[in-house]
Protein backbone atom coordinates (compact mmCIF):
# COMPACT_ATOMS: atom_id res chain seq x y z
CA UNK A 1 0.00 0.00 0.00
CA UNK A 2 2.72 2.35 0.94
CA UNK A 3 4.72 1.40 -2.10
CA UNK A 4 1.82 2.28 -4.27
CA UNK A 5 1.83 5.80 -3.05
CA UNK A 6 5.45 6.15 -3.94
CA UNK A 7 5.33 4.98 -7.52
CA UNK A 8 2.99 2.60 -9.19
CA UNK A 9 4.73 -0.35 -10.81
CA UNK A 10 3.24 -1.09 -14.19
CA UNK A 11 3.76 -4.79 -13.72
CA UNK A 12 5.42 -7.37 -11.58
CA UNK A 13 7.69 -9.90 -13.17
CA UNK A 14 8.92 -12.69 -10.90
CA UNK A 15 7.80 -10.57 -8.00
CA UNK A 16 9.96 -7.67 -9.06
CA UNK A 17 8.02 -4.50 -9.66
CA UNK A 18 8.58 -2.84 -13.00
CA UNK A 19 8.43 0.89 -12.92
CA UNK A 20 9.09 1.63 -16.52
CA UNK A 21 7.67 0.42 -19.74
CA UNK A 22 10.38 -1.69 -21.35
CA UNK A 23 12.05 -0.11 -24.34
CA UNK A 24 11.56 -3.08 -26.58
CA UNK A 25 8.79 -5.52 -26.04
CA UNK A 26 9.88 -9.07 -25.76
CA UNK A 27 9.16 -10.97 -28.93
CA UNK A 28 8.93 -14.73 -28.56
CA UNK A 29 11.11 -16.54 -31.10
CA UNK A 30 8.20 -17.88 -33.11
CA UNK A 31 6.64 -14.48 -33.37
CA UNK A 32 9.98 -13.08 -34.36
CA UNK A 33 10.08 -15.44 -37.25
CA UNK A 34 6.67 -14.34 -38.38
CA UNK A 35 7.75 -10.76 -37.89
CA UNK A 36 10.83 -11.21 -40.03
CA UNK A 37 8.87 -13.00 -42.68
CA UNK A 38 6.70 -9.96 -43.02
CA UNK A 39 9.33 -8.09 -44.91
CA UNK A 40 8.91 -7.98 -48.60
CA UNK A 41 12.61 -7.70 -49.20
CA UNK A 42 15.54 -5.52 -48.19
CA UNK A 43 13.89 -2.24 -49.21
CA UNK A 44 10.93 -3.01 -47.03
CA UNK A 45 13.20 -3.89 -44.12
CA UNK A 46 15.23 -0.72 -44.56
CA UNK A 47 12.11 1.41 -44.68
CA UNK A 48 10.95 -0.21 -41.50
CA UNK A 49 14.25 0.55 -39.77
CA UNK A 50 14.18 4.15 -40.95
CA UNK A 51 10.59 4.66 -39.80
CA UNK A 52 11.34 3.00 -36.51
CA UNK A 53 14.03 5.54 -35.76
CA UNK A 54 12.01 8.45 -37.05
CA UNK A 55 14.76 9.58 -39.29
CA UNK A 56 14.33 11.35 -42.55
CA UNK A 57 14.88 9.22 -45.59
CA UNK A 58 16.93 12.04 -47.04
CA UNK A 59 19.42 12.04 -44.22
CA UNK A 60 19.98 8.48 -43.29
CA UNK A 61 22.80 7.86 -40.82
CA UNK A 62 24.46 5.13 -42.77
CA UNK A 63 26.52 3.61 -39.98
CA UNK A 64 23.55 3.19 -37.68
CA UNK A 65 21.27 1.94 -40.41
CA UNK A 66 23.82 -0.52 -41.71
CA UNK A 67 24.45 -1.87 -38.24
CA UNK A 68 20.78 -2.38 -37.55
CA UNK A 69 20.19 -3.88 -40.94
CA UNK A 70 22.97 -6.38 -40.41
CA UNK A 71 21.54 -7.26 -37.01
CA UNK A 72 18.27 -8.24 -38.61
CA UNK A 73 19.99 -10.14 -41.36
CA UNK A 74 21.96 -11.97 -38.69
CA UNK A 75 18.73 -12.78 -36.87
CA UNK A 76 17.25 -14.16 -40.01
CA UNK A 77 20.29 -16.33 -40.45
CA UNK A 78 20.07 -17.57 -36.88
CA UNK A 79 16.49 -18.50 -37.33
CA UNK A 80 17.39 -20.28 -40.47
CA UNK A 81 15.07 -18.24 -42.52
CA UNK A 82 16.03 -18.67 -46.06
CA UNK A 83 18.00 -15.57 -46.73
CA UNK A 84 17.54 -14.37 -50.24
CA UNK A 85 20.51 -13.03 -52.08
CA UNK A 86 18.83 -9.64 -52.27
CA UNK A 87 19.37 -9.13 -48.57
CA UNK A 88 23.06 -9.80 -48.83
CA UNK A 89 23.34 -7.62 -51.89
CA UNK A 90 21.72 -4.80 -49.98
CA UNK A 91 24.11 -5.32 -47.07
CA UNK A 92 27.01 -4.98 -49.48
CA UNK A 93 25.48 -1.86 -50.96
CA UNK A 94 24.99 -0.26 -47.56
CA UNK A 95 28.59 -0.92 -46.62
CA UNK A 96 29.77 0.41 -49.93
CA UNK A 97 27.82 3.62 -49.49
CA UNK A 98 29.15 4.05 -46.01
CA UNK A 99 32.73 3.56 -47.14
CA UNK A 100 32.31 5.96 -50.04
CA UNK A 101 31.04 8.55 -47.61
CA UNK A 102 34.11 8.05 -45.46
CA UNK A 103 36.49 8.58 -48.31
CA UNK A 104 37.71 12.12 -48.59
CA UNK A 105 36.79 13.65 -51.89
CA UNK A 106 38.86 16.12 -53.82
CA UNK A 107 37.24 19.52 -53.39
CA UNK A 108 36.99 20.06 -57.15
CA UNK A 109 34.75 17.10 -57.80
CA UNK A 110 32.65 17.62 -54.73
CA UNK A 111 30.10 19.75 -56.48
CA UNK A 112 29.10 17.39 -59.24
CA UNK A 113 29.40 14.19 -57.29
CA UNK A 114 26.12 13.26 -55.80
CA UNK A 115 25.55 11.97 -52.35
CA UNK A 116 26.33 8.25 -52.44
CA UNK A 117 23.02 7.69 -50.70
CA UNK A 118 21.00 9.34 -53.42
CA UNK A 119 20.34 6.23 -55.47
CA UNK A 120 19.35 4.26 -52.39
CA UNK A 121 17.01 7.02 -51.29
CA UNK A 122 15.43 7.14 -54.73
CA UNK A 123 14.80 3.42 -54.61
CA UNK A 124 13.43 3.55 -51.10
CA UNK A 125 11.00 6.29 -52.00
CA UNK A 126 9.95 4.62 -55.19
CA UNK A 127 9.28 1.42 -53.32
CA UNK A 128 7.42 3.27 -50.57
CA UNK A 129 5.27 4.94 -53.19
CA UNK A 130 4.29 1.60 -54.67
CA UNK A 131 3.83 0.00 -51.26
CA UNK A 132 1.30 2.66 -50.36
CA UNK A 133 -0.32 2.44 -53.77
CA UNK A 134 -0.75 -1.28 -53.25
CA UNK A 135 -2.52 -0.68 -49.96
CA UNK A 136 -4.85 1.81 -51.57
CA UNK A 137 -5.49 -0.48 -54.46
CA UNK A 138 -6.38 -3.21 -52.03
CA UNK A 139 -8.72 -0.85 -50.24
CA UNK A 140 -10.70 -0.13 -53.40
CA UNK A 141 -13.99 -1.96 -53.45
CA UNK A 142 -13.49 -5.06 -55.50
CA UNK A 143 -16.01 -7.16 -57.38
CA UNK A 144 -16.94 -10.36 -55.56
CA UNK A 145 -15.12 -9.25 -52.42
CA UNK A 146 -16.74 -5.92 -51.64
CA UNK A 147 -19.67 -5.86 -53.97
CA UNK A 148 -21.67 -8.39 -55.91
CA UNK A 149 -22.43 -8.26 -59.58
CA UNK A 150 -26.00 -8.55 -60.61
CA UNK A 151 -27.22 -10.98 -63.12
CA UNK A 152 -30.74 -12.12 -63.55
CA UNK A 153 -30.61 -15.75 -64.47
CA UNK A 154 -32.33 -16.52 -67.69
CA UNK A 155 -32.41 -19.85 -69.46
CA UNK A 156 -29.48 -19.35 -71.69
CA UNK A 157 -28.32 -22.76 -72.83
CA UNK A 158 -29.95 -23.26 -76.16
CA UNK A 159 -32.14 -26.18 -75.44
CA UNK A 160 -33.39 -26.99 -78.89
CA UNK A 161 -36.76 -25.46 -79.26
CA UNK A 162 -39.40 -27.48 -80.94
CA UNK A 163 -42.44 -25.89 -82.43
CA UNK A 164 -45.73 -27.43 -81.52
CA UNK A 165 -47.22 -29.66 -84.13
CA UNK A 166 -50.67 -28.68 -85.08
CA UNK A 167 -53.39 -31.12 -85.91
CA UNK A 168 -53.35 -30.27 -89.55
CA UNK A 169 -49.71 -31.29 -89.92
CA UNK A 170 -50.41 -34.55 -88.22
CA UNK A 171 -53.39 -35.19 -90.41
CA UNK A 172 -51.52 -34.51 -93.61
CA UNK A 173 -48.64 -36.66 -92.50
CA UNK A 174 -51.06 -39.39 -91.74
CA UNK A 175 -52.79 -39.07 -95.07
CA UNK A 176 -49.49 -39.24 -96.87
CA UNK A 177 -48.73 -42.43 -95.04
CA UNK A 178 -52.10 -43.88 -95.88
CA UNK A 179 -51.66 -43.01 -99.48
CA UNK A 180 -48.28 -44.66 -99.49
CA UNK A 181 -49.66 -47.66 -97.73
CA UNK A 182 -52.38 -47.93 -100.32
CA UNK A 183 -49.93 -47.70 -103.14
CA UNK A 184 -47.54 -50.30 -101.85
CA UNK A 185 -49.68 -52.39 -99.61
CA UNK A 186 -50.91 -55.82 -100.51
CA UNK A 187 -54.37 -56.67 -99.62
CA UNK A 188 -54.01 -59.16 -96.84
CA UNK A 189 -56.49 -60.45 -94.44
CA UNK A 190 -54.95 -60.79 -91.08
CA UNK A 191 -56.32 -61.82 -87.84
CA UNK A 192 -53.71 -60.04 -85.87
CA UNK A 193 -54.76 -58.91 -82.55
CA UNK A 194 -53.48 -55.41 -82.62
CA UNK A 195 -53.32 -53.81 -79.29
CA UNK A 196 -52.92 -50.10 -79.07
CA UNK A 197 -51.28 -50.46 -75.67
CA UNK A 198 -48.82 -52.94 -77.01
CA UNK A 199 -47.88 -50.61 -79.77
CA UNK A 200 -47.49 -47.87 -77.33
CA UNK A 201 -44.87 -49.98 -75.62
CA UNK A 202 -43.25 -50.84 -78.91
CA UNK A 203 -42.96 -47.18 -79.71
CA UNK A 204 -41.67 -46.33 -76.27
CA UNK A 205 -39.13 -49.08 -76.46
CA UNK A 206 -37.91 -47.80 -79.76
CA UNK A 207 -37.69 -44.36 -78.33
CA UNK A 208 -35.60 -45.68 -75.46
CA UNK A 209 -32.96 -46.70 -77.94
CA UNK A 210 -33.06 -43.66 -80.15
CA UNK A 211 -34.23 -40.62 -78.38
CA UNK A 212 -35.52 -39.12 -81.58
CA UNK A 213 -37.38 -41.02 -84.19
CA UNK A 214 -38.82 -39.53 -87.26
CA UNK A 215 -42.55 -39.80 -87.37
CA UNK A 216 -42.56 -41.78 -90.60
CA UNK A 217 -39.99 -44.24 -89.36
CA UNK A 218 -42.32 -45.50 -86.69
CA UNK A 219 -44.54 -46.90 -89.34
CA UNK A 220 -43.80 -49.86 -91.48
CA UNK A 221 -45.99 -49.45 -94.50
CA UNK A 222 -45.46 -53.02 -95.55
CA UNK A 223 -47.39 -54.20 -92.55
CA UNK A 224 -50.63 -52.94 -93.87
CA UNK A 225 -53.22 -50.41 -92.92
CA UNK A 226 -54.51 -51.93 -89.68
CA UNK A 227 -51.04 -51.97 -88.18
CA UNK A 228 -50.50 -48.42 -89.30
CA UNK A 229 -53.74 -47.36 -87.74
CA UNK A 230 -52.91 -49.03 -84.47
CA UNK A 231 -49.46 -47.53 -84.43
CA UNK A 232 -50.92 -44.15 -85.15
CA UNK A 233 -53.48 -44.54 -82.43
CA UNK A 234 -50.78 -45.69 -80.07
CA UNK A 235 -48.79 -42.63 -80.91
CA UNK A 236 -51.73 -40.34 -80.37
CA UNK A 237 -52.39 -42.05 -77.09
CA UNK A 238 -48.79 -41.66 -76.01
CA UNK A 239 -48.94 -38.00 -76.94
CA UNK A 240 -52.16 -37.70 -75.09
CA UNK A 241 -50.64 -39.22 -72.00
CA UNK A 242 -47.67 -36.92 -72.55
CA UNK A 243 -45.28 -39.78 -72.68
CA UNK A 244 -43.94 -38.64 -76.00
CA UNK A 245 -43.45 -35.30 -77.55
CA UNK A 246 -44.11 -34.51 -81.17
CA UNK A 247 -42.21 -31.77 -82.80
CA UNK A 248 -41.52 -30.24 -86.12
CA UNK A 249 -38.92 -27.65 -87.04
CA UNK A 250 -40.93 -25.95 -89.75
CA UNK A 251 -44.06 -26.59 -91.71
CA UNK A 252 -43.69 -29.66 -93.95
CA UNK A 253 -40.38 -30.62 -92.42
CA UNK A 254 -40.06 -34.04 -90.81
CA UNK A 255 -41.97 -34.55 -87.60
CA UNK A 256 -39.98 -36.02 -84.75
CA UNK A 257 -41.13 -38.15 -81.94
CA UNK A 258 -39.22 -38.20 -78.72
CA UNK A 259 -39.61 -39.34 -75.18
CA UNK A 260 -40.78 -36.78 -72.74
CA UNK A 261 -37.96 -36.54 -70.28
CA UNK A 262 -38.37 -36.84 -66.59
CA UNK A 263 -41.09 -39.39 -67.14
CA UNK A 264 -40.09 -42.75 -65.70
CA UNK A 265 -39.37 -45.38 -68.27
CA UNK A 266 -42.23 -47.54 -69.27
CA UNK A 267 -42.70 -50.67 -67.30
Amino acid sequence: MIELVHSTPIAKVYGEPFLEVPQDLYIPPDALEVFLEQFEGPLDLLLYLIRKENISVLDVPMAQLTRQYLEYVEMMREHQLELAAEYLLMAALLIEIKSRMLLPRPPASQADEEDPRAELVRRLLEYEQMRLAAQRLDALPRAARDFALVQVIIERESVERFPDVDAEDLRSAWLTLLARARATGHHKVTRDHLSVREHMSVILRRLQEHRFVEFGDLFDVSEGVPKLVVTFLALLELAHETLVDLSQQAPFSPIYVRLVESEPAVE
Partner: protein
Amino acid sequence: MKSSALEPVQAKTILETALLTSQEPLPLAELKKLFDDDLGSEVLRKLLDELRQEWETRGIELTQVASGWRFRARPEYQKYLDRLNPQRPPRYSRAVLETLAIIAYKQPVTRGDIEDIRGVTVSSNILKTLEARGWIDVVGHREVPGRPGLYATTRAFLDDLNLRSLEELPPLDELGSLVEQGDPAQPSDETEVPERADEADLPESSAMPLHEADEEQPVIH
Protein backbone atom coordinates in the same frame (compact mmCIF):
# COMPACT_ATOMS: atom_id res chain seq x y z
CA MET B 1 -38.45 8.98 -88.69
CA LYS B 2 -39.38 5.41 -89.02
CA SER B 3 -42.58 3.76 -88.00
CA SER B 4 -41.55 2.59 -84.57
CA ALA B 5 -41.99 5.51 -82.29
CA LEU B 6 -40.32 3.84 -79.37
CA GLU B 7 -41.48 5.29 -76.13
CA PRO B 8 -38.60 6.29 -73.88
CA VAL B 9 -40.14 4.27 -71.09
CA GLN B 10 -40.12 1.19 -73.22
CA ALA B 11 -36.61 1.84 -74.44
CA LYS B 12 -35.46 2.13 -70.87
CA THR B 13 -37.15 -1.13 -69.97
CA ILE B 14 -35.40 -2.81 -72.87
CA LEU B 15 -32.05 -1.45 -71.74
CA GLU B 16 -32.73 -2.50 -68.20
CA THR B 17 -33.68 -6.02 -69.19
CA ALA B 18 -30.64 -6.42 -71.39
CA LEU B 19 -28.30 -5.10 -68.71
CA LEU B 20 -29.79 -7.24 -66.00
CA THR B 21 -29.57 -10.42 -67.99
CA SER B 22 -26.11 -9.83 -69.40
CA GLN B 23 -23.14 -11.61 -67.90
CA GLU B 24 -20.73 -8.93 -69.05
CA PRO B 25 -20.86 -5.17 -68.94
CA LEU B 26 -22.47 -3.93 -72.14
CA PRO B 27 -20.82 -1.10 -74.09
CA LEU B 28 -22.91 1.49 -75.91
CA ALA B 29 -22.22 -0.13 -79.26
CA GLU B 30 -23.73 -3.33 -77.97
CA LEU B 31 -26.72 -1.61 -76.41
CA LYS B 32 -27.49 0.10 -79.70
CA LYS B 33 -28.12 -3.25 -81.29
CA LEU B 34 -31.17 -3.63 -79.10
CA PHE B 35 -33.07 -1.10 -81.11
CA ASP B 36 -34.22 -1.04 -84.71
CA ASP B 37 -33.81 2.68 -84.96
CA ASP B 38 -30.37 4.06 -84.87
CA LEU B 39 -30.54 5.62 -81.45
CA GLY B 40 -27.86 8.22 -81.11
CA SER B 41 -25.24 7.76 -78.44
CA GLU B 42 -26.49 10.91 -76.80
CA VAL B 43 -30.02 9.57 -76.50
CA LEU B 44 -28.75 6.27 -75.24
CA ARG B 45 -26.58 7.89 -72.63
CA LYS B 46 -29.47 10.00 -71.49
CA LEU B 47 -31.68 6.95 -71.15
CA LEU B 48 -28.99 5.13 -69.21
CA ASP B 49 -28.60 8.10 -66.96
CA GLU B 50 -32.33 8.17 -66.28
CA LEU B 51 -32.28 4.46 -65.66
CA ARG B 52 -29.48 4.92 -63.17
CA GLN B 53 -31.48 7.53 -61.34
CA GLU B 54 -34.48 5.26 -61.21
CA TRP B 55 -32.42 2.65 -59.39
CA GLU B 56 -30.95 5.14 -57.00
CA THR B 57 -33.10 4.10 -54.08
CA ARG B 58 -32.38 0.40 -54.47
CA GLY B 59 -29.63 -1.94 -53.28
CA ILE B 60 -28.66 -2.44 -56.89
CA GLU B 61 -27.13 0.30 -58.96
CA LEU B 62 -26.26 0.85 -62.58
CA THR B 63 -22.62 1.75 -63.04
CA GLN B 64 -20.30 2.43 -65.90
CA VAL B 65 -16.99 0.58 -65.96
CA ALA B 66 -14.21 0.13 -68.49
CA SER B 67 -16.09 -2.42 -70.57
CA GLY B 68 -19.46 -0.74 -70.49
CA TRP B 69 -22.55 -0.54 -68.33
CA ARG B 70 -23.61 -3.06 -65.77
CA PHE B 71 -25.66 -3.50 -62.66
CA ARG B 72 -23.98 -4.21 -59.37
CA ALA B 73 -25.04 -4.50 -55.77
CA ARG B 74 -24.06 -1.49 -53.74
CA PRO B 75 -20.95 -2.22 -51.67
CA GLU B 76 -22.72 -1.18 -48.47
CA TYR B 77 -24.92 -4.26 -48.75
CA GLN B 78 -22.02 -6.66 -49.08
CA LYS B 79 -21.87 -7.26 -45.35
CA TYR B 80 -25.37 -8.64 -45.45
CA LEU B 81 -24.73 -10.73 -48.52
CA ASP B 82 -21.64 -12.12 -46.83
CA ARG B 83 -23.84 -13.66 -44.19
CA LEU B 84 -25.28 -15.94 -46.81
CA ASN B 85 -21.79 -16.96 -47.79
CA PRO B 86 -19.63 -16.57 -44.72
CA GLN B 87 -16.46 -17.80 -46.37
CA ARG B 88 -14.28 -14.78 -46.96
CA PRO B 89 -12.44 -14.73 -50.23
CA PRO B 90 -8.70 -15.17 -49.70
CA ARG B 91 -6.62 -12.04 -49.45
CA TYR B 92 -3.80 -11.31 -51.77
CA SER B 93 -0.39 -11.15 -50.15
CA ARG B 94 1.56 -7.93 -50.14
CA ALA B 95 3.83 -9.35 -52.80
CA VAL B 96 0.89 -9.81 -55.14
CA LEU B 97 -0.60 -6.43 -54.34
CA GLU B 98 2.66 -4.56 -54.74
CA THR B 99 3.31 -6.27 -58.04
CA LEU B 100 -0.18 -5.37 -59.15
CA ALA B 101 0.29 -1.77 -58.09
CA ILE B 102 3.53 -1.48 -60.04
CA ILE B 103 1.93 -2.92 -63.14
CA ALA B 104 -1.13 -0.71 -62.75
CA TYR B 105 0.77 2.52 -62.25
CA LYS B 106 3.87 1.94 -64.33
CA GLN B 107 2.58 -0.14 -67.18
CA PRO B 108 3.77 -1.51 -69.43
CA VAL B 109 6.54 -2.99 -67.31
CA THR B 110 8.74 -6.03 -67.52
CA ARG B 111 9.34 -8.39 -64.72
CA GLY B 112 12.77 -6.80 -64.34
CA ASP B 113 11.19 -3.38 -63.82
CA ILE B 114 9.00 -4.79 -61.08
CA GLU B 115 11.98 -6.42 -59.42
CA ASP B 116 13.94 -3.17 -59.55
CA ILE B 117 11.24 -1.36 -57.66
CA ARG B 118 10.47 -4.07 -55.14
CA GLY B 119 14.09 -5.02 -54.63
CA VAL B 120 13.28 -8.72 -54.67
CA THR B 121 12.76 -11.42 -57.21
CA VAL B 122 9.23 -11.60 -58.53
CA SER B 123 8.16 -15.20 -58.43
CA SER B 124 6.30 -16.60 -61.39
CA ASN B 125 3.49 -17.50 -59.05
CA ILE B 126 2.72 -13.89 -58.40
CA LEU B 127 2.38 -13.10 -62.07
CA LYS B 128 0.45 -16.29 -62.66
CA THR B 129 -1.95 -15.45 -59.87
CA LEU B 130 -2.67 -12.09 -61.43
CA GLU B 131 -2.87 -13.50 -64.93
CA ALA B 132 -5.25 -16.22 -63.82
CA ARG B 133 -7.43 -13.57 -62.26
CA GLY B 134 -7.54 -11.90 -65.66
CA TRP B 135 -6.16 -8.68 -64.28
CA ILE B 136 -2.87 -8.52 -66.17
CA ASP B 137 -1.55 -9.77 -69.44
CA VAL B 138 1.46 -9.47 -71.69
CA VAL B 139 0.91 -6.72 -74.20
CA GLY B 140 4.24 -6.87 -75.98
CA HIS B 141 7.92 -7.46 -75.57
CA ARG B 142 10.74 -5.11 -74.89
CA GLU B 143 13.29 -5.32 -77.65
CA VAL B 144 16.25 -6.07 -75.46
CA PRO B 145 18.10 -9.37 -75.03
CA GLY B 146 15.67 -11.99 -73.86
CA ARG B 147 12.69 -9.98 -75.18
CA PRO B 148 11.01 -9.82 -71.77
CA GLY B 149 7.23 -9.58 -71.77
CA LEU B 150 5.63 -6.24 -71.01
CA TYR B 151 2.81 -6.50 -68.52
CA ALA B 152 -0.23 -4.28 -68.40
CA THR B 153 -3.53 -4.37 -66.59
CA THR B 154 -6.64 -5.52 -68.40
CA ARG B 155 -10.14 -4.15 -68.70
CA ALA B 156 -11.34 -6.86 -66.39
CA PHE B 157 -9.09 -5.37 -63.73
CA LEU B 158 -10.80 -1.99 -64.09
CA ASP B 159 -14.21 -3.64 -64.24
CA ASP B 160 -13.55 -5.53 -61.03
CA LEU B 161 -12.59 -2.34 -59.26
CA ASN B 162 -15.57 -0.58 -60.77
CA LEU B 163 -13.39 1.89 -62.62
CA ARG B 164 -13.80 3.34 -66.07
CA SER B 165 -10.15 4.00 -66.76
CA LEU B 166 -6.72 3.97 -65.18
CA GLU B 167 -7.20 7.67 -64.59
CA GLU B 168 -9.55 6.76 -61.80
CA LEU B 169 -6.97 4.85 -59.80
CA PRO B 170 -6.09 6.50 -56.51
CA PRO B 171 -3.38 9.07 -57.20
CA LEU B 172 0.17 8.21 -56.24
CA ASP B 173 1.88 10.04 -53.43
CA GLU B 174 4.35 12.61 -54.58
CA LEU B 175 7.81 11.24 -53.95
CA GLY B 176 8.64 14.44 -52.09
CA SER B 177 5.75 14.01 -49.70
CA LEU B 178 6.93 10.56 -48.74
CA VAL B 179 10.14 11.98 -47.38
CA GLU B 180 8.30 13.60 -44.52
CA GLN B 181 6.49 10.54 -43.39
CA GLY B 182 9.22 9.63 -40.98
CA ASP B 183 8.24 12.68 -39.00
CA PRO B 184 6.17 11.66 -35.97
CA ALA B 185 4.39 15.01 -36.07
CA GLN B 186 2.67 13.84 -39.18
CA PRO B 187 1.35 10.42 -38.40
CA SER B 188 0.17 8.48 -41.34
CA ASP B 189 -2.26 5.74 -40.63
CA GLU B 190 -0.37 3.16 -42.56
CA THR B 191 3.22 3.96 -41.87
CA GLU B 192 3.01 4.92 -38.28
CA VAL B 193 5.97 3.41 -36.59
CA PRO B 194 4.64 1.50 -33.59
CA GLU B 195 2.02 -0.28 -35.59
CA ARG B 196 4.24 -1.14 -38.43
CA ALA B 197 4.90 -4.70 -37.40
CA ASP B 198 1.27 -5.59 -36.97
CA GLU B 199 0.16 -3.69 -39.96
CA ALA B 200 2.27 -5.61 -42.38
CA ASP B 201 -0.37 -7.97 -43.57
CA LEU B 202 -2.84 -8.62 -40.84
CA PRO B 203 -6.37 -7.90 -41.85
CA GLU B 204 -7.90 -5.94 -39.02
CA SER B 205 -11.32 -7.33 -39.49
CA SER B 206 -10.49 -10.97 -39.78
CA ALA B 207 -8.76 -13.26 -37.41
CA MET B 208 -7.22 -15.21 -40.21
CA PRO B 209 -3.76 -16.53 -39.48
CA LEU B 210 -1.03 -14.90 -41.49
CA HIS B 211 -0.10 -17.80 -43.61
CA GLU B 212 -3.55 -18.50 -44.81
CA ALA B 213 -3.77 -14.97 -45.92
CA ASP B 214 -1.07 -15.54 -48.49
CA GLU B 215 -2.39 -16.84 -51.69
CA GLU B 216 0.92 -17.54 -53.30
CA GLN B 217 4.30 -18.50 -52.03
CA PRO B 218 6.02 -15.50 -50.58
CA VAL B 219 9.17 -14.75 -52.44
CA ILE B 220 11.78 -14.34 -49.82
CA HIS B 221 11.14 -17.07 -47.39
